[in-house]
């Protein structure tokens, strides 16, 4: 597929009624009166800590005061000006450790302002109004940027580019845009359809989408030759393998496939017994989804104890509330079954004095299970960059598989390449990817403008101060 003739991704959401019913929203929308009352509770801090804590620096008190004053248009514009994916961030952000975690109310009457739900209230109002984004594309500069990956980083970068008159073409391997925003966030937080609705507005800014396009080294070389700059926003690669016997059996999947499956309508039910391996936020999302999809026994399996798990505390609480069970200090050593998974063989682990984990021999046991979901981290997906051309004496420099950038501009060591999101930070939140993409979009436009000024100067007679 080439140019995006379709700007109605929303209508292509293949939601299942059954799944929708089982994935009721964790944080329901605020009703209008409640939103105004909550907005009025905001103290309107100066240089507010909530805004500082937000990676995209949304001016939180400003948008909240606009809700209180009834200026919902202005409220949504304030949010989107800082964070073009403000609608999905309102749902997907771990606000407890971001804006709401920083709210001064923790030290006042203890109840932080419900910033996430207020942000959703304002952006929902914009969507409901049917109005376009409150921004227009800048005057065409004639410059073109290829963006690899259609996730939050690229979307945010593309929006900044369009607002500055730079053409933005997104290339993504999937049939729908949004990356993990569309396929990877628990449906009870951010429904797939909502992610698409938001991207529809972006498409109206003139962002081009090229779907089902895998960008490998050869494709990248082609893009390099025909675009003025490249933004790398392809996120991470697949989830790591366990590396144990039986891993290839039917009934072993990974969290990203499992979550994308139920969100896009290919998975409708989970079997009775599910084991999720890992204890990060994605693992929790998978375990919670298994419960909602009908599993009656869901275990999370982790090598260490609850205090070392990388999931946020509130996510852990959520999993416990829905009845997920936890097996701590165990390690999978084999998958039991003939054709179909029947169980997961686990070894007990203990920590030695130097902090390393060793198995306790002779105490292995089998956890009976019908489905094993791996959530033990994602590999990087940057090998194909090895063949990018050398410019100014540099290729795109990597460190442990992650792309190294100048944080202010997103520029890599190859000046024509910029990057942001999970492929840079190793896997953080949507809002971190948006912030990266935004800085890179501004950085690319400035770099292109500088290139143009230079070339005109070289051509002679161009006064940059004119």
């Amino acid at each position, binding site marked *: 597929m080439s140019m995006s003739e379709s700007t109605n991704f929303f209508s292509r959401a293949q939601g299942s009624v059954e799944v929708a019913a089982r994935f009721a929203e964790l944080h329901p929308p605020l009703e209008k009166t409640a939103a105004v009352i909550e907005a*009025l509770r905001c103290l309107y801090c100066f*240089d507010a800590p909530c805004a500082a804590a937000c990676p995209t620096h949304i001016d939180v008190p400003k948008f909240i005061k606009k809700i209180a004053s009834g200026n919902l248009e202005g409220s949504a514009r304030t949010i989107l000006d800082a964070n073009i994916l403000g609608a999905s961030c309102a749902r997907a952000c771990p606000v407890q450790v*971001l804006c709401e975690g920083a709210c*001064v109310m923790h030290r006042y009457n203890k109840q932080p302002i419900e910033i996430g739900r207020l942000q959703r209230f304002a952006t929902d109002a914009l969507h409901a109004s049917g109005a376009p984004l409150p921004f227009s594309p800048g005057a065409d500069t004639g410059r073109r940027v290829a963006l690899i990956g259609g996730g939050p980083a690229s979307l945010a970068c593309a929006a900044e580019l369009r607002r500055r008159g730079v053409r933005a073409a997104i290339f993504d391997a999937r049939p729908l845009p949004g990356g993990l925003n569309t396929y990877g966030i628990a449906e009870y937080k951010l429904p797939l359809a909502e992610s698409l609705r938001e991207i529809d507005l972006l498409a109206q800014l003139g962002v081009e989408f090229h779907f089902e396009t895998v960008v490998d080294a050869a494709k990248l070389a082609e893009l390099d030759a025909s675009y003025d700059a490249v933004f790398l926003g392809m996120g991470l690669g697949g989830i790591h393998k366990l590396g144990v016997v039986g891993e290839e059996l039917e009934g072993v999947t990974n969290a990203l496939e499992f979550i994308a499956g139920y969100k896009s309508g290919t998975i409708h039910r989970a079997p009775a017994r599910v084991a999720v391996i890992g204890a990060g936020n994605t693992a929790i999302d998978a375990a919670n989804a298994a419960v909602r999809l009908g599993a009656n026994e869901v275990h999370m399996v982790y090598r260490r104890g609850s205090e070392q798990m990388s999931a*946020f*505390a*509130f996510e852990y609480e959520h999993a416990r509330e829905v009845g997920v069970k936890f097996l701590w200090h165990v390690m999978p050593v084999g998958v039991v079954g003939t054709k179909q998974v029947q169980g997961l063989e686990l070894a007990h682990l203990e920590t030695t004095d130097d902090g390393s984990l060793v198995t306790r021999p002779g105490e292995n046991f089998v956890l009976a299970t019908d489905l094993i979901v791996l959530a033990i981290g994602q590999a990087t997906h940057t090998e194909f960059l090895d063949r990018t051309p050398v410019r100014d004496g540099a290729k795109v420099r990597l460190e442990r598989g992650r792309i190294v950038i100048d944080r202010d501009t997103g520029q890599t060591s190859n000046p024509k390449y910029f990057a942001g999101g999970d492929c840079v930070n190793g896997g953080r939140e949507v809002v971190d990817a948006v912030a990266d993409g935004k800085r890179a979009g501004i950085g690319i436009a400035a770099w292109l403008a500088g290139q143009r000024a230079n070339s005109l100067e070289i051509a002679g007679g161009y006064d940059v101060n004119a």
Partner: protein
Amino acid sequence: MSTLETRFAGIKCLNPFWLASGPPTNCGEQIMRAFDAGWGGAVWKTIGTQVTNVSSRYSSIDWNGQKMMGLNNIELISDRPSEVNLREMTEVKRRYPKHVVIASLMVESKREAWHEMVQRAEGAGADGLELNFGCPHGMSERGMGSAVGQVPEYCEQIVGWVKETARTPVIVKLTPNISDIRLPARAAKHAGADALSAINTINSITGIDLDTLEPRPNVDGKSSHGGYCGPAVKPIALNMVQQVMSDPQAVLPMSGIGGIGSWQDAAEYILLGAGTVQVCTAVMHYGYRIVEDMGDGLLAWMRRKGYESLSDFRGLSLLRMCDWKHLNLNFKVVAHIDESKCIGCELCYTACWDGAHQCIHLDRALAAPDTMRTPAMVAEESSRRISTTPIAKLDLNGGGVQGPYVTPLERIPRVDEEHCVGCNLCSLVCPVPECITMQRVDTGLVPETWAERVAANDGTEVDSAGKCAGR
């Protein structure tokens, strides 16, 4: 044992809480329910020639989510026949002999008309009369209400007529829609009035419907200025009460009116000399039941303060009001921020920079004090800071340089005490109780007022009248 019982211009009162003349005292049935709820008295909705009212009549302004900070009405005096009102008044007094019923009266400016109405009201059993010289809308266009109250001579003449025949105490209700409320008060006193009540409502337009452009309240697409009341008018009313009560030529027993809804409001009016207080808007908002806490709370406060009766504290704060020229110019306070209570909202900082004297700074985490860093510079620095989602567990401190306090040091403002003028603004905007306090600084100077300074320069004597007591 503290008591709320009191006497007002000779009238014995179970408590100082009266319903003001208005919708809550429209009829006998209402007033009897009010007495059952605990009200000590009621001023009957103004009786006079029967009027026709319009629909709609009230409008209000809300503030920050609070309803009816101020209420406005264009309702006239009672639209019931006066004989019905007076018949019910007799019935109320028969059933509630210990409760005070005051007849509010307004008739055309004719001696006979006033004589007749006074006699009828007293015949019905009224304990006292309140002359409505304050109603600012509608009736004033017909030469009554504030049209009388705004002209001291008319005021004096009508009070004189009433006093020719009245046997019960005569209370004159003053309008605030006048440059100097002491002038009609003096006129009333001169003509023999027994008491005053203040204030009536203030001329107002509460707002405009931004869809239809119609001002409120809307009567078939048009509106008319109405009388403003409710919590918003209390400071204005307190000032007017104080002006009258501090004026030897005007002072009389005062029934305070204006924005009263709590025991604190009542205590403040009494501290400025009021004998009773009248309530209308708060009852229109929440019903008669509010009187329970007005009494309960006031008694508890009196017990804490050691006051046995209202007269123990009536007027005490009048002694602490004086002209500006008698204030001590050498008294100095400076703001003090309690770092352990500060939550880091920085409202004091922005208020001081934009609204006061640029004496609060955000430089605690800097190497050296920086009094030149403007709010715009602070905001600009923040906008350039790159932040990411913390991977670690919940961190409620919002980052930043952590000092010995819960709030990061960089977010706790610092007061430049040398330049602080002691204006109070920061302590007023601070949302945390007792976080910012104004602390006295010894200037080492003897007290000196503007009057004294001018006199010293002129070599003339200081007029000691009106000088603050208790200094």
